[in-house]
């Protein structure tokens, strides 16, 4: 399942979306198209970070309820509405993990972990998986968030920057630093 099929928008799409948002500010029933459009993406984002499917559905509902409640405060900043939803989702899941740490999970495919090795230009063997998993589990939450967005959800830097409300360059620098740290640890268990 691809969690991010249509993040990027053309100028026309952004304009159309803006019209729907303005309509939803006046009448919550008009929020439907946004709900339909982004439900899967937001669920994907939430479930990617969680162990429990049912809780992920609950949090997703909570995200949309918050979005609808606060839609009058939403200001268009030239990026898709999804980035605002992702920020609400991020805040909701972090709040949940503060209350219930056991809900936090990291979900990745072997191919994703292989990509990390490729990124740091180290040969990859499956037997390194447990050590790499352990390493990722011990990353600070902010670094883990970057790894998840970039490698496990395959998002481009521009999108990561919009979700985290930072500049694209800042996102690249952060990722570079994280990979530098990972590389140092990875070289300890290479051939």
């Amino acid at each position: 399942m691809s969690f991010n099929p249509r993040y990027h928008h053309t100028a026309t799409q952004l304009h159309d979306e803006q019209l729907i948002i303005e309509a939803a500010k006046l009448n919550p029933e008009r929020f439907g198209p946004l709900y339909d459009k982004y439900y899967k993406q937001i669920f994907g984002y939430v479930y990617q970070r969680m162990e429990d499917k049912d809780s992920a559905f609950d949090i997703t509902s909570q995200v949309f309820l918050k979005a609808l409640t606060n839609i009058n405060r939403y200001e268009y900043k030239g990026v898709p509405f999804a980035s605002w939803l992702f920020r609400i989702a991020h805040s909701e899941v972090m709040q949940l993990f503060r209350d219930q740490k056991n809900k936090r999970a990291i979900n990745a495919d072997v191919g994703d972990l292989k990509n990390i090795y490729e990124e740091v230009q180290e040969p990859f063997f499956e037997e390194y998986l447990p050590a790499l998993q352990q390493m990722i589990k011990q990353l600070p939450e902010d670094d883990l968030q970057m790894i998840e967005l970039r490698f496990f959800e395959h998002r481009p830097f521009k999108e990561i920057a919009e979700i985290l409300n930072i500049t694209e360059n800042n996102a690249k620098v952060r990722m570079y630093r994280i990979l530098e740290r990972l590389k140092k640890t990875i070289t300890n268990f290479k051939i």
Partner: protein
Amino acid sequence: MEPKFNLNRPKISDEEINKNKDFDNLVKQFKEQSIQRARSDVSFFKNKKATYAAVIAGIAVVCTVTYLTVSNRSNKQTATNEKTNTLTENKKPGTRKTFISPPSQKLNVPYNSYKVNNAKGGELAHHTSTKLKIPKNAFVNKAGEQIVGDVEIQYREFHDQADIIASGIPMRYDSAGTSYTFESAGMFDVKGFQNGEEVFISPAAPITIEFASEYPTDTYNQYYLDTAAQKWNVIKHDTPSAYKNANDRPPNVLPQAQKSITEKNIEKKIEYIPKKIDSVKTVYDKKIVALPSPQQPGKPTKPTGRPQINLDVDFKDFPELVAFKNVLFEVGNENKNYSKEISQTTWNSAIISAGPQKGKNYILTLKNRTREEKFVVYPVLTGECYETAAKVYEKKFNEYNTLLDKRAADGQKLKDEMAAKQKAYVEEQKKLSAELLKEQIRVQRDMEAQYANQNKNAGVQNKVLRVFQVSNFGIYNSDCPRSMPKGPVIQPDYYSSTSVPLDPTIVYLVDMGSNIVYNMSNNSYSFMYDTRKKYSLCIVAGGSLYVCNNEQFNSTVKQNSRKFIFKSVDAENIADFKKALEI
């Protein structure tokens, strides 16, 4: 707390995601929330009555919680004082995982694995004469959907005291506030999987297990171990039935040994070695390719008398010509299109680019508004310029040769390193293969020993059938609850055969005459025994098993000694453990 890491978690279908979408409910929630918010705008706490009510309610809650906490503590204290060991004590936080805790994985009773097609069902014959009768469509997945294809059934049995100890299954049973220990007529543990995923028994099609029990009396009940609630649940009275005739018993076939964890680990390591060898090659090939490659300097040549052209060349593009001061370009013999007329024509641009013989010749492209001509040209030098360039060339050519030699030497060094690494992996592979063979032989011997032991029991005992209707996978038992032994008190000190004091974490009092294992771990310093019974003691200390056999036990209690001597159990499998326990 570290987060859990899931690798390759199954994806959720779009259908399931869409099923959970409910926009109408979202709008409903939003409207309710809006109404509540509007109501809460009327300040609740400005109402004095409400404030008092809240304070009183708060005090009441605090008092209730305090009372319950104190009451619970008091109850726990009472239970501790009575020194009763109940299953519910295992519910303490952090002990849930160790509810079923085998003292040694090596000695644990291994599972036998069977395959059954869910659509067809079938009858599985275990080598102890037990039959597993599986109706059609007996298995469902966690969503309650019928399983398609084969299901793997893992099954094992526990018949005697050694099996009970080795399994780590708790045999305590609480009834009406009294704690008992089970005397067992046999237990079994059955599980089902498909592709590593747990499957479940359909409520509409329970499976029947005709358990071959070695204990024929009619004094047992059937129980199911609820591992979540950590207690045994009684099912019904267990009435045994005899085999109609000896032919009913399935032929004894040596079951295929299951791979041990060690075996699997070694196989995995062996599997990785060719990949490692390949990867070493890839890494070193890249290193060899990346070695600096020297560029052969261009050899200066004298003019041959062909037409020459003086061009202003940017040597950045042609570093081999840097040493050629005042270089001229001579038109090559191969240019059949060259004529005098070319030199008399006015050209707007002259572009030089690499020629067919790199470093030796070049392509000169001449253009004007109407024409474009291309010629192969050769760099030539005259007079002093040639002499100087020849000297520079000689020096550079020597340097070039030195660098070539160095590159060859570095390349060879890397190749040698690669060969050494690959050789080390090949050696490791040989060593692991030898280890694997040794482990496979050990596992097969264990299985044969276990099989021989079970067959020996089957041959001498008069087996009966105990029929279980199994609607959940798990552990079932045909048991009779027995009270703790009554009689003289012993206060044992535990010593090894070399008189080293032992500090046991688990103490089993083994009734050798009945199939009962009392867990005395919580009052190991003092417990009673029945003088009419035959006992052995089995303990776990420092992660190892020790046995004080019946003879040693009797001799110690006769002497009124507290010093119980234990022999270390050096058992490789359950059969060895049985021998050590003298079963």
